[in-house]
């Protein structure tokens, strides 16, 4: 009997530390936030019940609309691209060659550094006179060199492939080993041509001086609803860069879990690499993709650090997200806190996250049908 009681309470005993956290630092906090959202509260005087006033104010607030738009754009685009990139990186890294562990560590680097450090470096890269514009200028002024390089590449590849065909050997136009040879050869020839001054950079073109951060310009132009502001786009790139490696590890683990036999079977059936990936690998990764997309959506909807750190380097309207909107209402510059407004926006953000994740789940479930 004693043993039975001990056994019966065991789950709760084991769970108790987590339940404490869940109830105190989540449940209680969540309910209080919900309550605050119906009040006016400046942290000094006790909260005053005001009904739905905060929510009505929210709907009418121009900035809230911008925050909502930016957050949605950010979540959808970043989640999509970072998932694709993570998978790509994982495929690249899924090799059994010397030094691959070194490369894995290297690729993961963007994910381990803190967002503050990374954002500072990115701010510097995206200055009007920063490295990004510097590289773009070099590309623009060096278009002749680039053209020569690709021309040579094409020539070498054609030469090698035709030579092989003449010998009646089976070879595809994109034979990778020749491609590699062609890349190396044309790089060497181009390098030689540039060094000897036969091919030169174009002089006199105006340098690229795109303002990336301190602007409200949008792309594509004139699409007020769907256009992405330049600074937000820059933050998107930054975010994709920092989070893709994390998800890459998940995919990598997934890829390594796929039994060898599957690949071998596909090879025996004569499937190409791309077909193998699509019909063999992709279905095996479905669970991971679901996880990656869900985690991606949740974290992108909460995006905060980068906006906070970029600060006055970009117009607030162009980068404000819902999470940041909550923050600047809770701690507005130079006036008393508006905990009510902040809480209402926070509740909205929470609901939005739930809805989007649910939609994604439904879409995935529907996709599993076939």
């Amino acid at each position, binding site marked *: 009997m004693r043993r039975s009681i001990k056994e019966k309470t065991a789950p709760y005993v084991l769970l108790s530390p987590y339940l404490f956290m869940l109830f105190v630092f989540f449940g209680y906090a969540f309910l209080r936030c919900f309550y605050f959202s119906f009040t006016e509260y*400046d*942290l*000094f*005087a006790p909260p005053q019940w005001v009904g739905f006033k905060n929510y009505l*104010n929210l709907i009418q*607030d*121009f900035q809230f609309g911008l925050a909502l738009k930016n957050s949605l754009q950010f979540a959808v685009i970043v989640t999509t691209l970072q998932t694709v990139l993570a998978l790509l990186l994982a495929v690249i890294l899924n090799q059994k060659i010397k030094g691959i562990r070194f490369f894995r560590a290297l690729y993961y680097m963007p994910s381990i550094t803190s967002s503050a450090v990374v954002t500072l470096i990115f701010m510097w890269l995206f*200055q*009007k*006179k*920063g490295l990004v514009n510097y590289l773009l200028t070099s590309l623009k002024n060096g278009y002749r060199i680039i053209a020569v390089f690709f021309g040579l590449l094409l020539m070498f590849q054609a030469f090698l492939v035709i030579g092989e065909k003449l010998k009646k050997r089976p070879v595809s136009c994109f034979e990778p080993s020749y491609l590699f040879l062609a890349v190396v050869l044309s790089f060497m020839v181009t390098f030689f041509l540039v060094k000897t001054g036969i091919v030169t950079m174009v002089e006199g073109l105006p340098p690229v*001086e795109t*303002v990336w*951060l*301190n*602007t*409200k*310009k949008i792309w594509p132009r004139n699409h007020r609803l769907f256009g992405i502001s330049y600074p937000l786009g820059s933050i998107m790139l930054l975010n994709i860069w920092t989070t893709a490696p994390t998800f890459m590890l998940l995919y990598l683990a997934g890829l390594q879990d796929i039994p060898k036999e599957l690949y071998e079977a596909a090879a025996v059936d004569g499937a190409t690499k791309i077909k193998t990936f699509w019909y063999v690998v992709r279905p095996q990764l479905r669970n991971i993709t679901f996880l990656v997309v869900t985690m991606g959506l949740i974290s992108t909807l909460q995006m905060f650090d980068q906006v906070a750190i970029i600060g*006055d*380097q970009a*117009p*607030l*309207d162009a980068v404000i997200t819902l999470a940041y909107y909550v923050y600047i209402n809770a*701690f*507005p*510059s*130079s*006036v*008393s*806190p508006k905990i009510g407004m902040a809480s209402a926006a926070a509740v909205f953000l929470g609901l939005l996250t739930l809805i989007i994740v649910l939609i994604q789940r439904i879409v995935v479930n529907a996709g599993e049908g076939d």
Partner: protein
Amino acid sequence: MKKSFAGVCLFLLLVVALFSTVSAARVQVRISGWGGSDQPIIEEMLRLYVTPALEKEGITVLYEPIADDFQRYIVNALSANTAPDLFYMDIFWAQSLIQAGQVEPLDSYIAKSKLLKKEDFIPSLLDAFSHQGKVYGIPKDFNTLALFYNKDLFDLAGVAYPDEHDTWDTFARKMEAVSKLDGVYGLALQPEFARMGALAYAAGFKTFEQNGKSNLFHPGFKAALEWYTGLAKSRAGIMPADLGQSWGGGAFGTEEVAACIEGAWVIGHLKDQAPNLNYGATFLPKAPSTGKRGNLIFCVAWGMNKESKHKQAAFKVLEQLTSPEVQQWILERGLALPSRVALTDNPYFKQNDREAQANYIVFRGASEGNVEPFSFGENGGRWMDPINEALRAIMSGELSVEEGLREAQFRLDQEMQR
């Protein structure tokens, strides 16, 4: 209710006062301000002046520096009842705390004080920390805007230095002329009301009109906006961001601009980043329409926690922190500009030293022409956002002046309805 509350407060106060005098127990007064460079300054000040002066009264002082967002810290700490007895109040947000009833009015203390008198302090500073006729903060130091210019560049271009007789027009011509130099722009134009506002005030603009609204179509504001953004059309002016700098002082230090509008904070920056820069400082140019100059006052004061348990002791510390000796020391070390009127004729300012002379210009800026505090009523910093945004958009060619004004007024009206 309020009266009885005040009564209770007074009673407690008396009890505390009696208690502290009778028992003469050691009282620790906690004071709090910024971290960073303020920390060594305040700690040194405590060590040299405050602690020795209060030792026999049994008062010790502990400085608690706050590294980040001080306003947020103090709001949280006040609400949590963990706030220090004395704390920094920036002119920018002081009113929000005062109006929330979190700051102790100081009039009754000042009335009894032998060391601290209202008339000793620069009136415009004291006003900024007053509410409904009561004083809530004693200014510890302040800053205004001055025009800093690079003497070498003007010499090289053969252009006369900007001086106190300049109006916007003559000044713009000088900027135009000096920007003929290779790789040099005229004035650094930060797209911020915190710079351009001084010009708008010069031309007669008022932050709030009689009806409590802000009118950006005021001719003074419009003229200032047109002049300021107009400089950016040629090389006579440029946004620091376009030079890869985040503020005017940065571009000034690298000698990419010939002049910038900044406060005394730029001096510290130049000491580190361009210690040999041959610069001068003068007043901002006058508005041609009014013949006056304008300026903004940036100021930090000491405020007292309303819930403090050692109010009398805290006030004694406050007296020491703003005493003439301490202010003299601050000035002579070139750390900040003190807030006492009597220091106007201080020999420090008369030195033949560019830093001292620049400090003097900034010091005098507080009483030259239309001077307004850097604070914006109930709207706080958000009041400036639409204007800053318009400045940026106009100067980068995204909007015309007219469009920018309309957009800013629309957003401002919306903001003020919140």
